[in-house]
């Protein structure tokens, strides 16, 4: 992994890190003589969250992770993330030694890193020819000869591998307050104007000022963490745990109502589906138990706040996954429910398709609408027939029979035709079902022709609910306007279908209702082939 990076590139990485705001990171060490500390810092990181261990727990297989991390992981798949051994959250044990190591390291880190950085800067400077080198030589002459080898080896350490011995000596030299006043004349360094006690070259003061506060803060934080840890542990030994761990529930045995009750007893929200409640309870148990493991337990209020932020990011109030994957069906999509809900629509579409198949002659009728054959003719009853559909289709979603039957009410010609049929029926002749009226190929009079074109109109207008509704009057000019709109709509429809009909199309599995399949085919054949 990134431990085994080579030197030059690391330098680049480390500098970008420094520029980007100096967040404590293991790469901080890479550019300094103490670069083996990067490795040390990495092994003090939890492998799940990649942060310093926060309340490390030992698994049965002797791996350590943050309490919250390993609890989440175990409740997700019940195995140790590192070695895949089956394990249970109840078998986790605190790794106090590791916790102390982390706290101690964090407390020591800021000073160590500043020393390491100073070393690096000095080494860089002294490797350049010029004034500084002479100063070093001068001070070497004044001091004993061992000093020379140190500065030489320091240079070497910076350019190649680090030398722990040298580092140790420099460390004590830098941090030992008693030694510093003596070093003033030797080094030509100045003290940090903010009073952190560090000494540096004049050129380094400016960059240091940015870091000085952060470093102090870090040191304080780590110190307080350490002292808190130690203080709490002494308390811990005296008194038993203030809070008991929560047991995991057997969710499959619990019904929704008892589950809801259980959640409310715990003082956490009890709304949502059972699935959501299970997830919320799991999260809460993990939060709670991790808090029990901790040496610095937080209050329930803080935990509830954590749960609330979980709720907003991953729970019931989380933004739906739409932004991530709109083209993919939801995981918990209720296919049967959807099928039942839209049964009418589906069966209508199937019926349409079957009818179409058995009556291929109807295709030219429908294509007329789009090719403009009928449009070219002076608008006759065909136009009048189309007009009432805007009202019904614009407001109603396509609902089977109602769609094709209600529009006739305002249409004198159609009504006449129906009456004719009724009379015929009364006279004992064969009746064609209303739906199939238009597709009947006998007796092609003007009335029938017009009714036959109706389904196409209805569907095209359905496709575009934004089509303005045209009142069903007898005004010819207005009618032809309406007809033009129908034509435009149908053109749009083609464009849409050409796009979505491409092989690369991605639609949810059950998205059917808005496109009457047969009309598209018919129209497509008429115009484009």
């Amino acid at each position, binding site marked *: *992994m*990134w431990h085994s*990076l*080579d030197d030059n*590139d*690391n330098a*680049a*990485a480390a500098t*970008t*890190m420094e520029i*980007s705001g100096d*967040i404590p*990171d293991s*790469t901080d060490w890479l550019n300094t003589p103490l670069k083996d500390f990067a490795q040390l810092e990495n092994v003090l990181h939890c*492998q*799940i*969250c*990649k*942060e310093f261990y926060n309340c490390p727990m030992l698994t049965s297989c002797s791996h350590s992770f943050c309490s*919250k*991390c390993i609890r*989440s*992981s175990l409740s*997700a*798949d019940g*195995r140790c*993330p*590192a070695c*895949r051994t089956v394990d249970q959250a109840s078998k986790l044990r605190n790794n106090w030694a590791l916790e102390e190591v982390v706290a101690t390291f964090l407390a020591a880190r800021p000073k160590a890193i500043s020393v390491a950085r100073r070393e690096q800067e000095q080494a860089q400077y002294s490797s350049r020819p010029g004034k500084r080198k002479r100063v070093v030589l001068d001070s070497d002459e004044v001091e004993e000869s061992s000093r020379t080898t140190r500065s030489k080896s320091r240079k070497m350490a910076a350019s190649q591998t680090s030398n722990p011995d040298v580092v140790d000596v420099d460390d004590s030299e830098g941090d030992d307050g008693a030694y510093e006043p003596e070093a003033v004349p030797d080094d030509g360094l100045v003290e940090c104007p903010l009073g952190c006690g560090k000494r540096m070259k004049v050129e380094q003061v400016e960059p240091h000022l940015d870091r000085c506060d952060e470093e102090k803060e870090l040191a304080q934080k780590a110190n307080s963490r350490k002292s808190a840890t130690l203080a709490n542990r002494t308390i811990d030994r005296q008194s038993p745990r203030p809070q008991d761990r929560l047991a995991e529930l057997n969710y499959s045995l619990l019904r929704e109502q008892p589950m809801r009750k259980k959640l409310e007893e715990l003082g956490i929200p009890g709304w949502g589906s059972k699935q959501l409640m299970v997830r919320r309870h799991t999260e809460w148990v993990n*939060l709670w138990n991790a808090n029990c493991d901790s040496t610095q337990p937080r209050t329930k209020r803080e935990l509830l706040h*954590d749960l609330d*932020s*979980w709720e*907003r*990011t*991953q729970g019931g109030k*989380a933004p739906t996954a739409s932004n*991530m*994957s709109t083209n*993919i*069906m939801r*995981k918990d999509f209720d296919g049967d429910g959807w099928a039942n809900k839209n049964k009418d629509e589906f069966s209508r579409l199937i019926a349409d398709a079957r009818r179409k198949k058995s009556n291929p002659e109807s295709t030219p009728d429908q294509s007329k609408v789009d090719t403009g054959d009928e449009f070219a003719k002076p608008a006759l009853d065909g136009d009048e027939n189309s007009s009432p559909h805007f009202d019904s289709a614009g407001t109603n979603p396509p609902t089977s029979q109602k769609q094709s039957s209600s529009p006739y009410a305002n249409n004198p010609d159609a009504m006449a035709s129906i009456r004719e049929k009724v009379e015929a029926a009364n006279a004992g002749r064969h009746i064609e079902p209303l739906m199939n009226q238009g597709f009947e190929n006998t007796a092609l009079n003007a009335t029938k022709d017009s009714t036959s074109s109706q389904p196409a109109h209805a569907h095209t207008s359905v496709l575009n609910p934004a089509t303005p509704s045209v009142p069903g009057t007898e005004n010819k000019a207005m009618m032809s306007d309406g007809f033009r709109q129908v034509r435009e709509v149908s053109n749009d429809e083609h464009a849409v279908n050409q796009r979505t009909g491409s092989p690369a199309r991605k639609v*949810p*599995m059950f998205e059917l209702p808005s496109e009457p399949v047969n009309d598209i085919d018919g129209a497509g054949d008429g115009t484009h082939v």
Partner: protein
Amino acid sequence: MAGMSGKRLQKELAKIQGVLPPGITLVSAPDLQTWHMDLRILDNPLYPPHDHYRLKFSFSKNYPIEAPEVVFLRLTTDPRRDIPIHPHIYSNGIICLDLLDAQGWSPVHNVESICISIQSMLASNTKDERPPGDAEFVRSNRARPRDINFLYHDPSV
């Protein structure tokens, strides 16, 4: 700790922007949900060393507890990217790798280790073929990669 994925991904991103193993490059990481990586296979004659393959990582809020979704992308515009031929990679880019499945995933993996795994899976490949039933799968599959139950029958990769 609800923001675990964000924090961890930021750390990973910082690392990735530094140095990566040879043949792996970060293309873009506009947010902490979707990242694009380019992969080059160095020593396998099946994949010319100058050919790059585009990987798309999609992270859920539950990362790293939950595995990211990793697929190959085919780009037809410049830069062109194709989907590598491999007996475990479908021609729509879905990768059959136990590491990416709920059972095989472990939170200790990261983007880099996934890239290395896929890279080595390709590097060790000797068969110039798609998985059996590729055409059928590509035509019919609408499920997300993580919901597909692959049968891991080949321990050699």
